[in-house]
């Protein structure tokens, strides 16, 4: 019994020690705030709730057509894009640095543009492609 207790104590201490060294070894993300103005809410509030603000806003904006709300992803990018890369992504990017640290995958940028003031050019489309769809003259 004593040996079992000693073994357990040893294991627990080992786990605590490894956690402590591990926690000290992970560098905190360096979040650079590039924009000079005020954010739409306090930093603590934004850290906790930015996903909820954007999630609800996106539904109202897309489904009900309510525009010009306080929270908007374009607004985030405009203020927080890096001055050097122009983007919120990248190693020191505003979004990516924190999300990499907290290991939260962020899917926004598969569709949304992470660069501020980006203007797509587009290509010329094909003319006269595809047949008529049920339309007869």
């Amino acid at each position, binding site marked *: 019994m004593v040996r079992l207790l000693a073994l357990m104590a040893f294991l627990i201490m080992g786990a605590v020690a490894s956690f402590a060294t591990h926690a000290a070894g992970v560098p905190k993300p360096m979040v650079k705030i590039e924009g000079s103005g005020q954010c739409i809410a306090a930093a603590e509030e934004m850290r906790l709730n930015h996903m909820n603000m954007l999630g609800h806003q996106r*539904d109202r904006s897309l489904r*009900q057509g309510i525009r010009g709300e306080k929270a908007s992803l374009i607004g985030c990018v405009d203020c927080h894009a890096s001055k050097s890369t122009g983007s919120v992504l990248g190693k020191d990017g505003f979004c990516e640095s924190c999300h990499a640290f907290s290991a939260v995958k962020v899917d926004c940028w598969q569709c949304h543009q992470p660069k501020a003031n980006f203007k797509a050019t587009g290509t010329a489309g094909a003319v006269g492609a595809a047949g008529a769809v049920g339309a007869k003259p």
Partner: protein
Amino acid sequence: MTEPNDKSRRGFLGAAAVGAAGLGVAAIAPGLHLIEVSQASAPGKGASSKVRWGMLIDTTKCASDCNACVKACNSENGISEVLKDPRQASQWIRKIDLKDAKSGITHSLPMMCQHCEHPPCVDVCPTHASMKRADGIVLVDRHTCIGCRYCMLACPYKARSFVHMTLTEQNPEVPRGQGCVESCTFCVHRVDKGQIPACVEACANAEHNAMLFGDLNDPNSAIAQRIAEVKTTQVRADLKLNVGVRYQGI
């Protein structure tokens, strides 16, 4: 998140709203009334069901060698990807040439999402991603689209495309990405700002003026007046989808 799609409930609410507003006439003072004019959604207000956005395309003015509308659409909506198989390329709008075999008469016209009142794509969507806004604009909510492409099969106008590759060149106002279905949005981001769709603007700039955009519900709008004047056609009118895009001259 999703809007109720119950026609009877909507009809009842609509009737109640009309009753309350006094048949679309707002009282600004006792005895003094202001007829409400339908317009683009005001900030914070959202799309109104009083508005039904629509388009009228005059095929007699549309030139077969012109694709200004397609170019403008691609540039406005950031459609720039080049695919190995061009059949997989996104087509929000395309030009088609029609020829009557008997008489030989030809027509050229742009074909895109017809923004149906009863859209089959919305009916079949298993995740409610395919949806119709209150003002009649049919959209895909990419946040819930799972890319099953059922809507592409359901659409009688071949209006929808599937994004096959990773994209990086999106316009900030037009998010689009791999694994989702997409189609013409009537340039909803512009319409909500009170502007007209990019294709309509490009057609006017090319001095063809074959496309007219406006509110079908507003009897004073240019489009409603033209539709009341000339014979216009709904493509596949037999499906009774009551489309928002009408054609003149076919």
